[in-house]
């Protein structure tokens, strides 16, 4: 794909993430590898639905330099580090999706419970220890947690996924959110001994868990 096609692809993926409820507002970011030394990333602080392909930022993955007026996402260091370390990876997505955020708040791994999950993601989804946004500490922790995997949770923050294509990264996002939802719902079921899980049951399980 040429640069214009890739810029379009990033833009469309951002819109898709919003429509699927996986990102909101300006939270989260998307990138694709452009060539061996550069990536195309979403800009900082602009919402996905208003973005135009020309708003995307071409960033050098070694120096993090860019020439456009728009600033690249503040998490560009993480995206670049993954492209440097893993030549097979061509797309990276960071989201604050609701169920994964709850797992990230608990610093709790998402277990690999199906063959499909292992095949797509590579195994259990580890948690990168907490680091302040945009810091080297967060970058190093995230790159380490996602090693040999297509996803990791970022403690107290959200989720990072990568793929050989943007389509694959998108599939990982969806599977993770579904798995996180199932994990939490199973825990509610276990606490209450009930199959059905809705807001009423979540409230009841929270009240019981708070008493322990």
């Amino acid at each position, binding site marked *: 794909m040429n640069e214009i096609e890739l810029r379009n692809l990033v833009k469309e993926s951002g819109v898709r993430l919003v429509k699927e409820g996986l990102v909101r507002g300006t939270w989260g970011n998307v990138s694709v590898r452009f060539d061996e030394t550069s990536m195309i990333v979403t800009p900082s602080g602009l919402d996905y*639905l208003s973005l135009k392909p020309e708003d995307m930022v071409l960033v050098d993955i070694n120096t993090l330099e860019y020439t456009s007026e728009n600033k690249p996402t503040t998490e560009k260091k993480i995206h670049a580090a993954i492209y440097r370390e893993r030549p097979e990876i061509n797309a990276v997505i960071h989201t604050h999706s609701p169920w994964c955020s709850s797992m990230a708040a608990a610093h709790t791994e998402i277990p690999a419970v199906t063959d499909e999950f292992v095949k797509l993601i590579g195994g259990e989804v580890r948690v990168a220890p907490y680091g302040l946004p945009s810091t080297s500490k967060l970058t190093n922790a995230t790159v380490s947690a996602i090693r040999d995997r297509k996803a990791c949770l970022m403690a107290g923050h959200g989720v990072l996924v990568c793929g050989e294509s943007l389509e694959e990264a998108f599939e990982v996002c969806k599977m993770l959110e579904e798995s996180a939802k199932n994990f*939490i719902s199973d825990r509610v079921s276990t606490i209450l001994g009930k199959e059905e899980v809705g807001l009423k049951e979540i409230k009841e399980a929270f009240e019981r*868990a708070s008493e322990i």
Partner: protein
Amino acid sequence: MKTEDNMIEKVKRKIIEIGKLLGKEDLTKKGDTISVRVGDSILLTDPSIPLPELTDKDFKRVSQGDNMSPTETLHMAILGYKKEGNAVIVNQAPYCSIVTGKMDKLPAVLDDFAQIVGYSAKVSKSDNVIDILTALKKRNACLIQNGSSLAVGRTLEEAFTGVMVLEKGAKAFVESTIIGNPVKIGLMDALLMNFIYKKKYSKKNQENLLDQIKKTEE
């Protein structure tokens, strides 16, 4: 005079828009209210009208010295206390309501909560004005034991973002407690992020959030 009338109409339209978005996000129930500072007075929604159903006739302008209802007194007191604030949203959101019955404060377990709301949001022990102002001390958002939550913003968009982040933080806290391990954001990290947000975060980012939700709806 005409300029002021135009401004009031513009504020009403913005509040109506926010009311619809709160409905779309399932963050409101009957009795919820929004107010915006307009000069020395406030423009407040009618509590008997659900926020998603507001029309331009469902507003009241209240000034100091007027004979006020408890709701009007509350909004006036908050905007009197929070001099930098210009908008207040009082709403009932599902996960915030779960927390209010059980906790005296909602700690930050996600860093966007720490950044925008602070290290924690306190739960006011009643809907009494003094209790709510006490819960809002050094904070721009709080929960109320009756199941409501409240966010103050420099703009209406910022108050809306506060409401969204409160609910997201409440969901993460409730569910991480169920899993067994809610981990609080460290105090120093939270203070630092909150300080940077207050100094740097632009109004543009808040407007982007609203634009996006509206477009998703289209």
